């Protein structure tokens, strides 16, 4: 039963999303020849249940891998260097904010000194 070996299946289930398809193909390929029908059904069920056990472990491992991947992703997103970097959008927003501030400042200076600006 090389095919149901958990160690071999880990990487496959862990990385691909086609878990169900893989199980079906496993069942089909292990179909023995020259065995009576009830016996065949029983062995199929056994194999199927064996497959599910393996799959659950693999799924658990897959989930664990996914969780780890997410954790790595989140740490890289919120790393200190990235936090310090400002996006061009933010820079535009800050520039607009400062421009408004300067306009207000300019107006107050104009009022203070009685200066007029004509375009």
């Amino acid at each position, binding site marked *: 039963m090389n095919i149901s070996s958990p160690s071999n299946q880990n990487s496959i289930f862990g990385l691909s999303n086609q878990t169900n398809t893989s199980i079906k193909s496993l069942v089909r390929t292990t179909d023995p020849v020259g065995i009576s029908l009830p016996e065949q059904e029983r062995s199929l069920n056994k194999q199927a249940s064996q497959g599910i056990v393996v799959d659950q472990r693999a799924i658990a491992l897959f989930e664990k891998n996914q969780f780890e991947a997410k954790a790595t992703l989140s740490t890289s997103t919120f790393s200190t260097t990235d936090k310090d970097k400002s996006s061009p959008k933010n820079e535009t927003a800050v520039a607009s904010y400062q421009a408004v501030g300067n306009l207000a400042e300019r107006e107050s200076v104009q009022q203070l*000194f*009685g*200066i*007029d*600006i*004509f*375009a």
Partner: protein
Amino acid sequence: MSNIPTERTVGLWKKYHFFILFFAAIVIKQLPLISIPFNWLESYFHEISHGIAAIVTGGSVLRIQLFANGAGLCTTQGGIAFVISFSGYAGATFWGWGIYKLASAHQRVAQSFSVLILLLIVSSIVFWGRDLLTWFILAVLAVLFVLTIKLKKLHYLQRLMQVFGLLILLNSLASPSYLLDGRNLGDGAALATMTFIPEFIWVLIWFLLALVALYSLYKSAKKHN
């Protein structure tokens, strides 16, 4: 025999010289790089008109700023705000009309007037220019007038000054329409705030002034023939 075509050319020039110069000004205005100094010229006369109005009405000019795209700013202190605001576009029209008219009067008058404008530009560099870009633009305009003064044949100086005058007038015709951008900025908006007369009325007045100035030049050119 060879004199006949020359006489005919002279006759055509005498008859249509206003339209020929006007067409030349329109062509120059459309040329991408060559038109830039002439846009600065109109911008300078606009700002200096604000400045002169401020001085005439008892105020003073603190700074004149010119920008590469043809925009400009004139910072003044005191004076009558209404007169200063109105005189920007109206003044540019008057300068354009005056330059053409004086250049048409006499070759020596054209030369003297050119020297006078050069002196005005130089004093603007000294007294009112405060930044590199403004100094550069004013220096380009000064060189333009130095070149016209240096022209050996005064006849060409006369024609060049007339083209300058028409270019300033053409810009004066088009520029006020830029104020109708819905942003409520500029001389039109300032006058609207002061007088409660809508901005587009002021734009219309400036446009009509430029049109009347052009028509006056056309009439005097026709009379001269």
